[in-house]
């Protein structure tokens, strides 16, 4: 009888534990650098809302950073445009500290620089 109870307990625990939401959260970090003047920035925040703001940069070393936790399958998105022909921009999206996607541009005030994607499933 003891082995029967044990078997039932094992099955039940498998079912119960599998019904609990796994924590697959990823740490997402947006980083923009290399701009030497103001630029317009739009990004998706941790609540999947599009945030638009102006970023004042003084030198190419200035960094704008935004971090949040996200799940696999969430969209990550950063888009920016600068207006100073002498300026530049580099956008990186990092997932758990590793560069997931990046793009850069220099002396191009006509195009938006957009880096985006979906957090990969395991």
């Amino acid at each position, binding site marked *: 009888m003891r082995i*029967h109870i044990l*078997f039932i307990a094992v099955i039940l625990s498998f*079912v119960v534990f599998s019904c609990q939401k796994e924590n697959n959260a990823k740490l997402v970090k947006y980083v923009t650098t290399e701009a030497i003047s103001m630029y317009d920035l739009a990004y998706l925040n941790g609540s999947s809302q599009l945030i638009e703001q102006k970023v004042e940069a003084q030198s190419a070393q200035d960094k704008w950073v935004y971090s949040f936790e996200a799940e696999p399958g969430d969209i990550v998105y950063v*888009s920016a445009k600068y207006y100073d022909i002498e300026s530049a921009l580099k956008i990186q999206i990092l997932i758990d500290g590793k560069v997931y996607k990046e793009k850069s541009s220099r002396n191009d005030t006509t195009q*938006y620089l*957009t880096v985006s994607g*979906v957090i990969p499933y395991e």
Partner: protein
Amino acid sequence: MVLMLLLIAMYVKGQKNIDTVMRLNQVEIVDSSVIRIPQLKNMEKVDMENSSVSDVGEALRSLPNVHGIRKGGTNIDPVVRGYKFDQINVVLNGGIKIEGGCPNRMDPTSSHVNFYDIRNIRVIKGPFGLTYGPVLGGVVNMQTIKPQPFLQPDIKIYARKKMLWNREGNSNFISFEGGIPKASLYTSIYQSSYGDYFSGNGERMNTTFEKKGFTGALGFFPSPNHRLDFLMMRSLSENVDFPALPMDERSDDSKVWSFSYQGKNINAFVKNFDLLIYYADVTHIMDNKNRPFSDTVVAISQIDAITKGVKSTLAFDINTFDFLVGAEHTSIFKDGTRKKHMILQPQLPIKNEKIWNGAEIYNLGLFAKIAKQMDRFMFSGIARYDYNQAFSEDILVKNPNDVSLFFKEADSTESSFHNISGTFGVDYFLNDDISINLSLGRGVRSPNMLERFIILLPVGFDDYDYLGNPDILPENNNEADISLSYIKQNIGLLSITGFYSYVTDYILGEILTPTQQKPLSKDVLGVKRFYNADEAYFKGFEFYYNSLDVLPFNTRLAVAYTDGTIKQNEQYQYNDQNEVIERTIIEDDPLPEIPPMEFKANISDRFLNKKLSVAIDFRYVLAQKRTSLCFYEKETPGFFITGMNAGYFFDDVFSINFGVENLFDELYYEHLNRRIIGSNKPFYEPGRYFYSNFILRL
């Protein structure tokens, strides 16, 4: 319409200790020959629980002339004698219909049922199961476990663990059943988690999925002749990969509620009275996030499908005639939107496209069945009338610049049909051993949601966006089956069935020129709109043998063949830009997705006082060379696979079962498996894999 032909539905007179064969319900051709199990009637659940299968569609593929369309690791869509999708009426507990959400049938009806709660599945081939609803090519009836009265207060527990290797899967199921003489409760919970599998050449196939579910059923038995049942079933799927479709299922949440009443021998006139009321709600979410195309556009679709229905039947006798009369009403509502996130564009624009726009279908059915035994003859017939009505809100498609690409006003989407179906069957018992059955039937199926209202999605077998057509007419199947069965104590059971179907207004897609309609999906050749094509023909046969107790080992053999042809269809020739440059009429073109001929054999026996069971099965499938020219369907090579299974029953409580599928690690794929999307690669079946089932009954 012309009723063609004949059938012999094999019919076994009496049961004579032969559990394998169910007494056939006149005219209904009930395929009970689940190949692995000799005593199907009482062991259908056992058959499924001792096997490697985890899905209704997969289980059905073990029946002769029943196949499945594979698009992923699970949710295989049943095909009966070459009939598929809504040409088959798939119901739960004799009448519950569940409309899936996905236009691409990621979630066919069978996927919304907790597999481990099913006690048996019955297939009625042909248009003969008219008491289950309108039907064209067959009925699949899944019966769930029903609470049973307990003579004294008691509790039963059933637990099961299934494990697989090479498919990296496991499932856990536990049920409790308890009650008293007047009431009982059944409840179960399950969870399944499967990873990718590997084909015979070691190639990884993306077939991951997770499922879980809960079922509660309550039965009341106020008197021996009356019972009331309440059922609540919920099943959830998550992250189901469909490499043969443009999207994966992110989640699918289905809820089914039903109430039923069954009364027997209510008075001198009424033999049975049944009432069924149900409600099914499916929320289906799918996306392309795991696909390369999501680098530019992330598409997420959510579809809500609600099915409601009521069905009632009354059985009575007048003189020596058996009568059954019934009525049913079903309504289906569907609404869904695809959100496209343009993630490479500034400001992240989101485009909303309707997949279904408040589409509804109502069906009212009235039917009557009569049966009469006269000496060596048994006659039966069913007549059915359906009033089918459908409409949708505006069907509107716009391009990114807000320019209308396609528009159909709500007023012009309405359609209604009066459909008449009927069957007639006669069994003739030549003697105690041989019986012949002839069945004639006409089944009419109104177009489904997809065929009426779908808005530009690649839902077909080919690479086209499909557009619904509210003006489309119902399909009609005029079928004749003839069966011969022979049963002898020293020979076993032999049966052979031949069938011929003549289908009019067969529904296919016709190409629209780019000026008529441009596609919305990426990488498709163009747009096709559903229309009523020419006549189609299906013919074939099924042979079945069961040695019963004649041979030292129980042996079962099955052979099945189906041939589907469309009288006339168009083939399109394309230039390098995929533009249609020529159209050719093809006469008698094979229909696409018709399974090839196959042979199945199963040998099994029990040893050690029947505690040890051993079974081996073989399946040989011929190459399918009869392929559709119009659809540029590819030929499929034949294959031969073998499986083995051994089980040990320690006692009435505990049993273990081990098995291997595809023992020789054959690299193969079924003709009905869809191609891997974005490539011409076939979707291979699993290579060799092992499985085990641990079962406990208390």
